[in-house]
């Protein structure tokens, strides 16, 4: 099974490398969103940590929803049939989860690079990169099944936003809280509870994606 | 005595006027409870009315 998952991951990677515009369009979306913030806000205003971090996570939210919806878009029906005969749904969903995680992680690092370049990197720390890692993990886990759901519907670009926003709000809230608190007091005790909830949400999301994708995939 | 009564009567009204803006906070906020209970009841009744209307529409179509 592991071999097959790697096989799928390799295929996804090859498709993404051959269709460069997919990744580039998401990256451009990200860059222009950050640039809008740069234009609209004064640097002195953004100097406050709360605004800095909240705006950053909001940008991350929109970019991750756009990018994950794209990750299912580009699969044509023919290719889906091909996957259908070659792989089992559980292998597909695991591969998709891993792929989305890596994809988001790369995007997040581009985002933090560009964001700190334009709006100052005064608040970056070792903890923040760990948090970015955790954020990419939980957001990709939650959104993968939602994008699989909206893939089955026509006009899905609107649907995915509506379906994913309410589910992603709690995660975003926890992430923003952790990043605010850990900036003031970077000790484990303060963030312990929030961290456990995030892990719990991830466990629920991954296990349900794994179970429910079976039913979604069969036609 | 009559004058006293009139003054009492007037002050009664005056008092009420002063308290008018605060009706919902008077009597230990009991009116809030009544309002909430009424909203819930009216909400449920409206919902049931809507269901009944749908049933009637369906009967007409048959």
């Amino acid at each position, binding site marked *: 099974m592991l071999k097959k998952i790697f096989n799928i991951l390799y295929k996804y990677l090859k498709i993404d490398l051959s269709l460069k515009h997919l990744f580039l369009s998401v990256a451009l979306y990200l860059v222009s969103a950050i640039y809008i913030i740069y234009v609209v806000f004064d640097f002195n205003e953004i100097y406050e940590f709360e605004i800095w971090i909240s705006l950053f996570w909001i940008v991350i939210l929109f970019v991750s929803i756009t990018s994950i919806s794209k990750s299912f878009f580009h699969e044509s029906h023919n290719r889906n049939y091909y996957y259908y005969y070659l792989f089992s749904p559980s292998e597909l969903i695991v591969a998709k989860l891993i792929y989305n995680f890596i994809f988001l992680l790369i995007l997040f690092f581009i985002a933090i690079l560009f964001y700190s370049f334009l709006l100052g990197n005064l608040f970056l720390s070792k903890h923040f990169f760990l948090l970015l890692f955790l954020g990419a993990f939980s957001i990709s886990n939650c959104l993968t099944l939602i994008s699989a759901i909206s893939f089955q519907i026509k006009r899905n670009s609107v649907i995915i936003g509506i379906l994913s926003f309410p589910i992603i709000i709690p995660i975003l809230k926890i992430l923003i809280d952790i990043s605010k608190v850990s900036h003031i007091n970077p000790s484990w005790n303060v963030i312990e509870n929030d961290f456990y909830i995030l892990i719990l949400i991830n466990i629920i999301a991954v296990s349900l994606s794994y179970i429910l994708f079976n039913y979604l995939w069969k036609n | 005595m009559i004058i006293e009564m009139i003054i009492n009567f007037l002050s009664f009204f005056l008092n009420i006027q002063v308290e008018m803006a605060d009706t919902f906070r008077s009597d230990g*906020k009991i009116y809030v409870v009544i309002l*909430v209970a009424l909203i819930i009841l009216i909400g449920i009744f409206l919902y049931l009315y809507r269901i009944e209307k749908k049933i009637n529409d369906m009967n007409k179509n048959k």
Partner: protein
Amino acid sequence: MEELKNLKYIKLFSVSLLIYAFIGGFLFDVPALPILNESIRVLYFHVPMWFTMIFLLLISCINSFYFISRKKIIYDTKSYTYTSVAVFFGFLGILSGMIWAKFTWGSFWTNDPKLNGSAITLLIYLSYFLLRSSISDEIKKAKISSVYNIFAFAMLIPLIFILPRMTDSLHPGSGGNPGFNVYDMNAQLRMVFYPSVLGFIFLGIWISKLKLVLNVLKNDN
């Protein structure tokens, strides 16, 4: 109409418990607290809305699970019906809570974890209805919306049951305590509160069963 067969006891319980709750809710003694005053009685009418909503959503989620395992369209109709009644109770809960908040906390809406949780719950289920209305094929609609329903309900559990208890809240029972503990609620309150919760839950089931018959007939036509 086999749905309406076992309804007799539910109706009986619902009516008697609710009559008891409305009489007791207005007349029985309550603890005298500052700010809250008599409005503590709103507890008997506002909180049962949320209990009913969660209970109906749980039934809806179980029915969605039955649908994806047994593939019968009736389970999907059931789950849809229970969800719509649950959302209705959720709206009543929000409305009543807003009025209670206005006269005790001073504003209709505050940034409180429980309020956020209830708002997000309603958003999730409103998008569930939107999802349903955007698919025309019956089987596909049932399948996709069941999957979303199960996923959404599971994601709600940490949001509603765990998150509000860990952060500061204006509601009682936050900061590590379970929902209602000895300090928040004494025997006097419980004597009306639990019957009221049960009465509203039974009322919710009653309304859902009626609506279910309507929806089943609509599907048959």
